[in-house]
């Protein structure tokens, strides 16, 4: 059955784009050495011109952050720091519609997700960490834990504002100042956040935002004035950063790739499991490091479950991200689309069977239909490599032990899912899955109080909760655990 929907587009009028944006250094927007353009991935229209920060711009940002750290932020009482964070949390709420629309324009994700997930969670992260700022001595890291200094943070394009919040909120709460590098394709909400910092009267230099590409990120990570590096992104870049920090001695936390198994047992509630599988892999076009990209389904229900899954996939609405009924938005960039195309082609070459939801793709912009591969072997690239797109690989198992074996057969270890009505089996599975987050009878849930981060090559350190504070405090080994 196919429902017809009238268009329900969210208005862009709430967003006022400038023609060009500077770098946010020392509390002001300043010019840099060169510029680049950021586009809407849904239409390929140019949204604005953004400054590319070169090494000398990064120098200025680090100097501003150092000065703010030494003179203001590290000596300010925690309760005062906390009040700034509360202010920022409130300002994000006050400007939530504007942030959501801008995020969807620049990133391509459905407005429903930016409005209901990204922005409210970003505000929640500031509220949660605001309360920690004057309670750090009770957090279990010694009687008077100290900040680390100037933190260099490099974030990805899949949740631009939310990843900014995950990075900046704990860093500031713990008394550090930051130089943050947003992703090249999604700089705009970070620059709007800079305006929010100004509205909050945050002391100049506490937050500095340098836009640019990988070279800018490298300049931030390698800068001798940076005391700690926090990176979210690909495992290959994460390893490079780990090598660089091994020599420089900088503290480091990494949140990297994943290839999560979503394990469905024969007694799982079928409709809920199908919703969970869809949410697990098609949420945010599958641009999610913890996406449930490997479906492990018990052999006895595989055919039935796949039938239900394909029926459900057929109802997903792909198209204009600004439409409030849209389920699947645009792929974030041409480069990412190319990567998805290459990996899915390898899936077909290696013998897996592809099925894509029969949805029309818009003429302009970057799009990929929700897709499922069956007949996948563990050795196939689509079962081993992170696709970071709306592509699900299906494998089967017979026994719980086999499910654990297959689920853990990956160098990654970020997340996993389990679907069954049997409580003892959930806890048995949860204790054996080598992953930092296990969702049982749910998937892709996030909360500022809930520690998030990986095992093995998915990185180290946690974000969120009491555990996340350790990454930004000068406790021995704190950057490494």
């Amino acid at each position: 059955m196919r429902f017809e929907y009238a268009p329900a587009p969210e208005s862009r009028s709430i967003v006022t784009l400038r023609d060009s944006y500077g770098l946010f250094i020392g509390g002001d927007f300043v010019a840099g050495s060169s510029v680049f353009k950021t586009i809407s991935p849904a239409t390929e229209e140019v949204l604005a011109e953004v400054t590319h920060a070169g090494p000398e711009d990064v120098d200025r940002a680090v100097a501003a952050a150092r000065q703010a750290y030494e003179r203001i932020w590290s000596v300010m009482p925690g309760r005062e720091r906390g009040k700034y964070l509360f202010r920022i949390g409130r300002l994000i709420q006050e400007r939530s519609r504007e942030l959501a629309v801008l995020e969807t324009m620049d990133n391509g994700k459905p407005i429903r997700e930016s409005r209901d997930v990204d922005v409210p969670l970003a505000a929640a992260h500031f509220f949660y960490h605001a309360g920690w700022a004057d309670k750090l001595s009770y957090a279990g890291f010694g009687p008077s834990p100290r900040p680390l200094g100037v933190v260099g943070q490099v974030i990805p394009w899949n949740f631009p504002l939310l990843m900014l919040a995950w990075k900046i909120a704990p860093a500031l709460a713990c008394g550090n100042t930051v130089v943050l590098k947003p992703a090249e394709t999604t700089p705009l909400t970070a620059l709007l956040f800079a305006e929010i910092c100004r509205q909050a009267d945050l002391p100049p230099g506490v937050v500095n935002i340098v836009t640019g590409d990988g070279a800018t990120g490298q300049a931030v990570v390698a800068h001798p004035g940076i005391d700690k590096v926090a990176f979210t992104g690909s495992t290959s870049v994460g390893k490079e950063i780990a090598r660089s920090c091994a020599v420089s001695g900088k503290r480091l936390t990494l949140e990297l790739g994943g290839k999560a198994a979503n394990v469905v047992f024969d007694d799982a509630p079928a409709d809920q499991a199908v919703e969970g599988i869809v949410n697990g892999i098609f949420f945010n076009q599958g641009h999610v490091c913890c996406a449930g990209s490997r479906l492990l389904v018990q052999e006895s229900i595989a055919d039935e479950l796949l039938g239900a899954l394909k029926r459900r996939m057929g109802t997903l609405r792909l198209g204009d991200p600004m439409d409030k009924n849209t389920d699947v938005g645009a792929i974030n960039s041409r480069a990412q689309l190319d990567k998805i195309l290459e990996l899915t082609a390898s899936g077909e070459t290696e013998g897996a069977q592809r099925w894509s939801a029969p949805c029309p793709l818009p003429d302009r912009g970057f799009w990929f239909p929700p897709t499922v591969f069956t007949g996948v072997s563990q050795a196939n690239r689509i079962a081993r490599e992170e696709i970071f797109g709306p592509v699900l690989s299906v494998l089967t198992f017979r026994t719980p032990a086999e499910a654990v074996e297959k689920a853990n057969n990956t160098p990654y270890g970020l997340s996993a899912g389990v679907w069954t009505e049997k409580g003892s089996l959930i806890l048995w599975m949860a204790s054996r899955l080598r992953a930092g987050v296990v969702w049982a009878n749910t998937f892709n849930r996030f909360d500022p109080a809930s520690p998030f981060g990986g095992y093995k090559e998915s990185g180290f350190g946690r974000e969120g909760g009491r555990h996340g504070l350790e990454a930004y405090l000068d406790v021995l080994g704190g950057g490494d655990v």
Partner: protein
Amino acid sequence: MSEASEVSVAAEAGRIAVRKTYKLYIGGAFPRSESGRSYEVRASDGGFLANAALASRKDARDAVVAARKAFAGWSAATAYNRGQVLYRVAELLEGRRAQFADEVRLAAGLSAAAALAEVDAAVDRWVWYAGWSDKIAQVRGGSNPVAGPYFNFSVPEPSGVVAVLAPQDSTLLGLVSVIAPAVVSGNTAVVVASERYPLPAVTLSEVLATSDVPGGVVNVLTGRVAEVAPWLASHMDVNAIDLAGAPGALADDLAVAAAENLKRVVRLPAGDWSAEPGLERMFGFLETKTVWHPMGV
């Protein structure tokens, strides 16, 4: 042969001592190095003590295989059980105080009283860590108040196989102070003993072998840290590494090699091994797992 080589308990006039062969400890067995090599271990006064096995790359890899094999069982044991097993190690150490004190005295050139004090501190350190096994989860984990109808909790779990480079400057206390924090939480370990003081490490492995610690949970290699450690640091089935026994420049290289599979690297400033250890070393080999489940009727 110098006087120093005569272990006091065997130094009875007119009797030829039965000497011990110091071997590796891998998977619960005591093999020689597969390379057939050994090196001279000398006392603080330069006298010959013994030939210790000179471990090779193959020995290191065999030890990793043994440690990986032991991980599933050891990490799944109850915390109470691990605590009991480790406490029993302390009981057996206590029973061999005199033997360890002799080895420590000869190796480090300490007075008999100082050597015994070092051994006692090592036994006490082991007891301290044994008691942590069923406390870590409550100190390090907990439930998280998420904004939704979910029960959400975080638990610490062991990282996996840990390569432990024992400190070079300590005979026994430093050694137990790096092994115990790795294995108490369910990790398994491949230990590279101090180059200069390998004999107490071999004797410790005899204690481990005769206590209830399953084979493969602790594996002990003797030899050149600069030769063996790089193979462990770059090994793709090792999850973490403690660089206590690596000199600065080597430690940098090992940390770079460890990035290849993002090992957890513990690199703490050299301290006084007799001081209260703190929790960093134990926490350095822990992951945090967070589990969500919906609540509802």
